[in-house]
């Protein structure tokens, strides 16, 4: 806020903007409410109106969103969204989650209060705080020209004496209006914060849990890299050296049982090397670190039994955590496609635009992928949620299946 005197700070302006902008969501909300009540009520006998009326219960959700955003005008403390992220993608789960949340009902209460009472009050206050002082302050002008300045039906400033008194009165009202407007905005801001945001304690706890989850995943990722490095520097190197020694020994051994034994040991060592290489790749594909997501996806596609078409448009590399998550999504999705889809072909598109990495993965298989039936989809959604991303799946029986993942990329 700084140390500037209140009257020359930004606060009166911000408070005034908060009140003045209330009329936009207010009037819109009131019209929608009225229209919904009229149409829904009129059709209620025909039953089709009932869903329209039921939808009103959720009217507070979008209103709460807008109002939380508007609250930023007068309240520098960030406002937490009080809603939970639905456990699964899809409209049904979203409705069930919202219906059970207290936040939804608090928002509805706020919305009713706001559209019926608060916004007209705000509008009147915002206009009065500017128009009345201005009318008084400028009154000497019409009076000097021989006219008068009307204030109210039957009340007007017409003499120079009245005009001379009107100017200081206007100044007082302007200053008083600034305080009044700010007080009104502050009171409404407190009300909005009380009703529209998560209770502070819970919000703080939630932020802590979210952060600790992200820390856990990142520690888990770091551990995978460490294991990959240890296997690469240790076991893999020793096995290669062993295989080399056995190979050299075979050169010098005359044919016989000893040579056969060494040959057998050599074959085992080579098989172990092949298995170890696959294991290491599975733990962490180094190509992801070295060459990024598009190259790693291409390699994953090469390993997929279903042919995969790739299209990546990434003009920079996403942060490491996002890249790792995106790779996880791709390899899980390809594994699902190979296991369940019976698809002939699949495709992966990746695009980084506007601070969001968008992944679209699809196949022409039988569809019917369901997050609820223990498929990899719920694990995938969990993993994506850690970096604040979202997953949506469309997989009607008969296909095709399309997976859409958005990952925020700061």
């Amino acid at each position, binding site marked *: 806020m700084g140390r500037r005197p209140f009257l020359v700070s930004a606060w009166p302006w911000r408070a005034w903007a908060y009140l003045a902008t209330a009329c936009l969501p207010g009037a819109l909300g009131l019209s929608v409410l009225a229209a919904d009540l009229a149409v829904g009520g009129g059709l209620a006998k025909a039953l089709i109106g009932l869903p329209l009326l039921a939808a009103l219960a959720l009217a507070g959700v979008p209103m709460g969103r807008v109002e939380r955003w508007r609250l930023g005008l007068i309240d520098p403390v960030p406002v937490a969204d009080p809603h939970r992220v639905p456990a699964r993608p899809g409209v049904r789960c979203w409705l069930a989650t919202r219906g059970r949340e207290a936040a939804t009902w608090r928002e509805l209460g706020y919305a009713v209060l706001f559209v019926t009472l608060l916004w007209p009050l705000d509008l009147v206050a915002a206009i009065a705080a500017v128009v009345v002082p201005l009318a008084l302050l400028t009154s000497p002008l019409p009076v000097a020209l021989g006219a008068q300045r009307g204030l109210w039906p039957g009340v007007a400033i017409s003499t120079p004496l009245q005009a001379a008194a009107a100017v200081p009165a206007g100044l007082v009202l302007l200053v008083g209006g600034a305080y009044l407007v700010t007080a009104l905005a502050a009171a409404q801001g407190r009300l909005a914060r009380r009703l529209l945001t998560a209770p502070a304690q819970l919000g703080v706890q939630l932020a802590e849990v979210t952060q600790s989850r992200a820390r856990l995943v990142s520690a888990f990722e770091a551990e995978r890299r460490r294991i990959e*490095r240890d296997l*690469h*520097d240790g076991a*893999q*190197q*020793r096995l*290669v*050296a062993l*295989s*080399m*020694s*056995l*190979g*050299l020994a*075979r*050169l010098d051994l005359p044919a016989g049982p000893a040579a056969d034994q060494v040959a057998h040991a*050599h074959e085992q*060592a*080579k098989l172990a*090397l*092949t298995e170890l*290489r696959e294991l*290491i*790749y599975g733990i962490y*594909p*180094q*190509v992801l*670190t*070295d*060459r990024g997501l598009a*190259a790693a996806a*291409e*390699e994953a*596609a*090469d*390993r*997929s039994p279903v*042919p*995969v078409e790739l299209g990546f448009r990434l003009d920079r590399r996403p942060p490491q955590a996002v890249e790792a998550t995106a790779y996880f999504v791709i390899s899980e999705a390809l594994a699902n496609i190979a296991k369940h889809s019976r698809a002939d072909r699949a495709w992966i598109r990746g695009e980084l635009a506007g601070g969001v990495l968008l992944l679209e993965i699809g196949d022409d298989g039988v569809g019917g992928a369901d997050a609820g039936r223990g498929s990899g989809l719920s694990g995938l959604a969990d993993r994506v949620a850690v970096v604040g991303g979202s997953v949506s799946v469309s997989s009607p029986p008969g296909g095709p299946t399309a997976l859409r993942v958005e990952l925020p990329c700061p």
Partner: protein
Amino acid sequence: MPVSLRVVLAEDGALMRAGLTTLLSRFGHQVVAEAADADQLVRAVAEHRPDIVVTDVRMPPGFSDEGLRAAVALRKARPGLAVLVLSQYIEKTYAGELLDSGDGTGVGYLLKDRVGDVAEFIDALQRVAAGGTVVDPEVVRQLLRHRRDPLERLSPREREVLALMAEGRSNAAVARALVVSEAAVGKHIGHILTKLDLPPDDDDHRRVLAVLSFLRA
């Protein structure tokens, strides 16, 4: 016995470095310098002007792909320098970058595992030193799993032939591997070159181009 090659060996693992030095000298080749990181490699090449460089992909300081990057840079700076990269990765990204550096001759990309098959490894080393192109069969197999155009135009037999060409085999060796006559192999190769729209140039270079298009597709 072919000529003794002067080798610069870059490998950060002491165990591997010692093993490879023993192996190379066992076959009459000489390791003129050993390097434990990419900088040492570049310096050793400048100092010793070897016949061939054998390098690991992953090396200090970043333990990423410094060895591969050094190999690519060396090939750009010194056309004609033979480079054999030993890798832990069958991912085609790495092999493709290496083969794209220079004109595609005198270059090899082998899995580290191959050093166990000592005779074949030395054979590959000599072929690369002589200007050949060698790609690990495992990498080739990975490439063959889903080929998109223009390789889709090739018949399965032609793809087999191309895969063996990519391993750096001669016509005679391809014929032996597929149990067909050398003339039949020559015919297959002719078809492959035509189907891949390779210009009628001298035959060796077209072979290399065929292998490169195979890796890039």
